[in-house]
């Protein structure tokens, strides 16, 4: 079980690192997906190896996949808008508003 958890943790960390460092907005969105996936792995693992009964964890996983997809869709739509507005999707473009 630990291995799964560690895998999830690593995925999570990679995702987090990606969110922080990727320059490309799409890259950021992908990294976010990684983090969601880490959570899904956790759920599924726990469903299998812990006290949990039933399939709740698995169900949770499926829901997360759906929602992550929705989120990604919205994200990509916004990225399109970004492209339209800035002619580029670098994350350092959009910082008009600060302090």
């Amino acid at each position, binding site marked *: 079980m630990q291995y799964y958890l560690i895998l*999830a943790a690593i995925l*999570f960390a990679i*995702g*987090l690192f990606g*969110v922080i460092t990727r320059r490309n*907005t799409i890259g*950021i*969105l992908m990294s*976010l997906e990684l*983090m*969601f996936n*880490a*959570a899904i792995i*956790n*759920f599924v*693992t*726990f*469903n299998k*190896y*812990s*006290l*949990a*009964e*039933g*399939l*709740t*964890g698995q*169900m*949770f996983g499926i*829901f*997360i996949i759906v*929602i992550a997809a*929705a*989120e990604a869709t*919205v*994200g990509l*739509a*916004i*990225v399109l*808008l*970004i492209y*339209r*507005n*800035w002619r580029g999707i670098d994350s350092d473009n*959009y*910082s*008009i*508003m*600060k302090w």
Partner: protein
Amino acid sequence: MDFQLPDYNVWQMLPEIVLFVWALAVIVFDLGTKRKTGSAVGYFAMLGLVVSGIALAIVGHGRGFGNMFFNDSLAVFFKVIFLGAAFMTIGSSFGITKEKIVNHRGEYFGLLLFSTVGMMFLASASELITLYIGLELTTIPLFVLAAFFKDDKKSVEAGIKYLVVGALSSAFLLYGLSFLYGLTGTTDILQMRFNLAAGQLSTGGDIGVILIVAIIALLAGVGFKLALPPFHQWVPDVYEGAPTPITAFLSVGSKAAGLVAFIKIFVLGLYAYYEPFMAPNDWGMLTGALAVGAMILGNVVAIRQKNIKRMLAYSSIAHAGYIMIGMLSMNELGLASVGFYMFGYLFTNMGAFALIAHFEDKTGSCEIKDYAGLSKSSPFAAMSLTIFLLSLTGIPPLVGFFGKYYVFAAAIKLAGSGPGYDWIYWIVGVALITSVIALYYYANVIRTMYFIKNDAPVKLVFSAPALSMVVIGLIGVFLVGLNPEPFIQFASGIPFTAGFILP
């Protein structure tokens, strides 16, 4: 594998279902009328909220889908807030839809309703999956709404920022939830609490590090919604960039949703203070520290803001801090005060934003300095905004004051209840002092409106919906302020919600 069919009680979901269908209908209505509906679609959407509210009243308390869906006092109270917030948001959106969103009114109002549905689900959720879905259903339409001005860089920027940070936080939330699930083996919040208390855990009774990790990750996830520092960074940017009514909705609806999530997870699930099992993992002091951070940061930074939306953004960070004080005080006053505070905040903040939105429609500006001389050209607007700001400051007999009073009362009651709670006094002290600081920047707006001369001040002519929103806000501020008793009664049902048993 036993698969027991739960006792559906779809009836309990009537308000949500009505609203959901109505949201679809709004979009279809707009499409069907070839997008030439004018304000009709907006009124239609408002009607939907009213209908949903009536449905809520009819349905009353109860439960459905086994233990997954509760209509308890907590849920009903917050649903009223959500509906009210959505109602006032739509009311103050007419100007914007007229000027800027000519072609997408349907989507705009529809998404708003969807988001409201999500919040209502969230309020009723008593189980992690429902909770999570409700939360996402709340947030995702808001991403879109924040970026609704497609050609406005600020708005788009607000959208992407909101999305990235929001998704990140929900990733944290999920990660935390997964540990919680792993530890207790259940997604049912009440069961989870029971398991924790009884030590029926995967780790064999030892709570260990896992819970701590979970708590921290969850705090990050929910703190984002609540705009609690250090998870507040998105707030000013998004508030500034998003369409003003959406900002209003974010500041009230989304915050209330965050509160509900907080109550569900932390107060109901990880019941602190009174349960010995939580002793080493008590999240109270930690949240207290965050609340202090929120109050200090929000109030201090707000002082130098030049954009009124941004200023209110920081102020809403500060208010999150005040609310958390109520949350910390886990006595019969605590949750009730949170609810009441939020209820007052609904009227106050929505009213203020309605005015700001209206002002923005007329002038295209949100700069505080453009409000100069408003008291001469439009005394009513200036007076109303003044009243809202004073209510935010907490001047009696306006509702903001009673909210604060109630929250502080709860905190002081806790503080006086035992020697271990002395630190609450310090938090209350910070809260009080920062509320004086708050006066400074609120008064700055008032000062601009009243004391600064402007040769050509803008004359605001109110449209009926904008005016009625302001009036509703004013009535709320005064009515709830002067006669808070029924609302306190209403709110004091919250602590007695399912499973939350007082010591």
